């Protein structure tokens, strides 16, 4: 049991436990704060996998952008003072059946597939330069299209949310 394993299990535990609380907590605000912990755990696992730049982008985009947006959504749509912010669950039995079947498929896939064992988890070299080259050469079209998508989403969101 070396340090690498301990860090992996720590971040995996943080991610899974807080993801569980996101779904099960009845208070929406607590769900949002547990989602913050989940994003941090996933960022830590990215660092462990050698994707350091991606971990920083994960924190900036998800925690700094999407989570703040979700919190604004909670504040704008729920009445904090009364109990309306607590919401329950519904349709437990069909959901259990669907998720059980789906997890069976996933586990059987995982067990029956022969995963390719190549190299180690840490490439060691700088990932940022490599990513920039790939994005500006091979995937330049998708990159530009994503810019247009973000512009469309910006205009659409402003139009829909306006009175």
């Amino acid at each position, binding site marked *: 049991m070396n340090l690498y394993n301990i860090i992996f299990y720590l971040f995996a535990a943080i991610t*899974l436990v807080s993801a569980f609380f996101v779904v099960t907590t009845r208070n929406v605000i607590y769900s949002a704060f547990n989602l913050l912990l989940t994003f941090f755990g996933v960022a830590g696992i990215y660092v462990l996998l050698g994707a350091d730049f991606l971990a920083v982008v994960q924190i900036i985009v*998800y925690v700094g952008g*999407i989570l703040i947006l979700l919190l604004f959504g*909670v504040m704008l749509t729920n009445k904090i003072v009364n109990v309306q912010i607590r919401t329950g669950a519904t349709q437990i039995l069909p959901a259990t059946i669907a998720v059980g079947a789906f997890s069976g498929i996933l586990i059987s896939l995982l067990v029956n597939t022969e995963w390719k064992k190549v190299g180690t988890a840490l490439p060691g070299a700088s990932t940022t330069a490599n990513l920039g080259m790939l994005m500006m050469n091979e995937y330049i079209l998708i990159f530009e299209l994503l810019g247009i998508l973000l512009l469309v989403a910006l205009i659409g969101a402003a139009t829909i949310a306006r009175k």
Partner: protein
Amino acid sequence: MTIPIEYYLILSGFMFLTGVVGVLTRRNAIVVFMSIELMLNSADLTFVAFSSYLGNSIGQVFVFFVMTVAAAEAAVGLAIIIAVFRNKKTVNIDEINILKW
């Protein structure tokens, strides 16, 4: 470094299942939204794990694309939720049925 790739896949599989449970069982539209973000994040984790274990950066490029689409989806989705709340005074997805006929 001694961790096999299956562990990362199991982790992201459980994250995805948690997100599915949230989408199927919760009534608040914003919590459903958070569960969708969980599912997107678990897909990202799978991409990064494979890219790392294959020694290839293309998986990380795709994670960037997924993050961009997730940001756009969050902005538009929350705008829709706020617009619906303004008209119906609720974000309970059992009571929002204006697209039904």
